């Protein structure tokens, strides 16, 4: 029987043992080390950190290993650990214009202060499987630029000088930034909470929604104003100190979409913004996030809400893959008590139906 009554504990124990065995696989092969995962599967680690909302490469690598490469399971492991950590405070906003840039591209200007920098990208690689990678071949040392830019203005800052693009939204005076891990969401949301939800949202879900806006379901005429990847300092203000404390550096990917906006009776025509920021290197996620952010600003900008990507409650309620996978997969759990109730009802209704039919037959005869 499916529910191994009394055998439940033993069954679970044995299942976990088998899982451990399958995780390790062939014992004659060396076990994969966390450092190997951090170094060689870095983008998997980045995704787990981003959607797990915890910046720790080694823990993310451990999660990837423990989850046998199942990304959502790994994200779940990191989330469940993160939730037990004490909170010391909130850092200052990241100053991405001071990023130590490794990659930076703009689709809107051919050249711009700070220059374009391709960086470690898959773009322009021909997607031909490379048999040499199957062996541990020699890898060349990369070329690096000599001079480092202390300050590289963002494209939107440049556009902002003459009002061609809306100002970066300021939070009203005295408003504390929300924290969706500490307060239950209540719709409608402000943009701060929405961006938090998108930043930890499922890459695939946001990608699909972002794509839908390009195909006309909430079209927003986007241009990739700028995408930059690199390390930024994180700073914490401490009450006793009159200067912010630098805690360290993290790698992030920032995407600023520039979108068309016709203007209103109150505002002259200008471009609008969609914003994406993700832990690690993940252009796909940050671009999807920026497109979704812009689509979700429909209410704020007085646009008609006609498409799924513009529907805040729909998007935010279903973007979290840990929630989604839990509820979809909970259908595996026994439901036989409720099913029994439904069986009973259908049997009764079929009985009544049959009775009626035979009465009708008799009446006809």
């Amino acid at each position, binding site marked *: *029987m499916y*529910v*191994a*009554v*009394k*055998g*439940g*504990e033993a*069954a*679970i124990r044995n299942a976990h043992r088998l899982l451990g065995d399958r995780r390790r696989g062939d014992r004659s092969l060396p076990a994969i080390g*966390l450092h190997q995962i951090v170094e060689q599967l870095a983008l998997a680690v980045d995704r787990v950190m981003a959607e797990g909302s915890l910046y*720790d490469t*080694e*823990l993310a690598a451990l999660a990837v290993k423990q989850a046998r490469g199942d990304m959502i399971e790994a994200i*779940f492991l990191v*989330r*469940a*650990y*993160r*939730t*037990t*950590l*004490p*909170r010391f405070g909130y850092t200052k906003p990241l100053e991405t214009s001071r990023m130590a840039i490794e990659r930076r591209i703009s689709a809107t200007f051919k050249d711009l202060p700070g220059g374009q920098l391709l960086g470690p990208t898959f773009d322009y690689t021909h997607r031909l499987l490379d048999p040499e990678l199957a062996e541990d071949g020699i890898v060349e040392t990369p070329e690096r630029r000599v001079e480092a830019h202390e300050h590289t203005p963002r494209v939107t800052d440049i556009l902002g000088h003459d009002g061609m693009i809306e100002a970066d939204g300021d939070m009203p005076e005295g408003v504390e930034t929300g924290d969706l*891990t*500490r*307060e*239950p*969401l*209540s*719709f*409608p949301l402000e943009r701060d909470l929405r961006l938090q939800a998108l930043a930890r949202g499922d890459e695939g879900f946001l990608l699909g929604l972002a794509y839908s806006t390009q195909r006309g379901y909430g079209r927003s005429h986007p241009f990739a104003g700028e995408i930059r990847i690199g390390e930024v300092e994180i700073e914490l203000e401490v009450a006793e100190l009159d200067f912010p404390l630098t805690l360290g550096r993290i790698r992030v990917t920032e995407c600023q979409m520039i979108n068309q906006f016709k203007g209103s009776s109150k505002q002259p025509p200008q471009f609008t913004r969609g914003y994406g920021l993700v832990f690690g290197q993940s252009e796909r996620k940050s671009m999807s996030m920026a497109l979704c952010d812009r689509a979700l600003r429909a209410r704020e900008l007085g646009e008609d809400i006609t498409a799924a990507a513009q529907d805040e*409650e729909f998007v935010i*309620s279903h973007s979290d893959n*840990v*929630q989604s*996978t*839990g*509820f*979809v*997969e*909970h259908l595996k*759990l*026994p*439901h*036989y*008590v*409720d099913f*029994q*109730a*439904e*069986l*009973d*009802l259908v049997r009764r*209704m079929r009985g*009544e139906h049959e009775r009626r039919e035979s009465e009708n037959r008799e009446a006809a005869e």
Partner: protein
Amino acid sequence: MTELATYNFAYLDEQTKRMIRRAILKAIAIPGYQVPFASREMPMPYGWGTGGVQVTAAVIGPNDMLKVIDQGADDTTNAVSIRAFFQKVSNVRVTTKTTEATIIQTRHRIPETALQAGQTLVYQVPIPEPLRFLEPRETETRKMHALEEYGLMHVKLYEDIARHGRIATTYAYPVKVEGRYVMDPSPTPKFDNPKMHQSPALQLFGAGREKRIYAIPPYTEVVSLDFEDHPFEIQTFSEPCALCGAKGSYLDEVILDDKGGSMFVCSDTDFCEDRQAEGNGDHLSANPAQAAANPAEAAE
């Protein structure tokens, strides 16, 4: 390597417990109203009882005796898993006896044995909003609760009657609490609804993924929605339990073969075992299928 934390008593940190405890107190003060709370990620998946687990973790202490059931049974895998979790993180005493437990965490059933004053029943809730399948938007359903606008629910039930000649809701059957809030009793069969009414036990409901906690204090009016000409009625079974002979308990159908053969046994395993221990069901003929359907014996 990052140093892994040792986990706190009952897993949750004290700050999280305080947040949940504050929500529980409000929930008790406003019976049937869904209090939003900042549900945490738990080390089991959303949809698998994280709401109930958080409520239990915030309430439980060293003097408690915990019982965990799923589908009425103590030994279903998820019940085993949740009970093992609490044994591990809170080292609390556990039991399968309804009468011994101070806290009972449940999924989909209310025990057959009447609960007592001082006991707390914690329900795992997947979708706390009774109006959700009529109106998917939280912004709308919240307004409907605020205005006590429950017409839609009655329309739905009435459409059932028009189409099927009866109310076709068999589980998660909506109730009205203390004449004010329409509440989802969690996916228990409607058979269990009457047990909620004027129960001496405290009933707490936790929905982790949906981030809601609600409650029914002891001795509170809980009425299943119905119509004068179609009064609420519970399921009845034509035969008694094949193991203990109980009449009037909720039964599971156990398939015996692929030719339509089946038997009906109590869903509440503790209730059934107690009755068998008291000698009930002895007259039932020894049936090899019976032993198979009761692995409690088979395992011994």
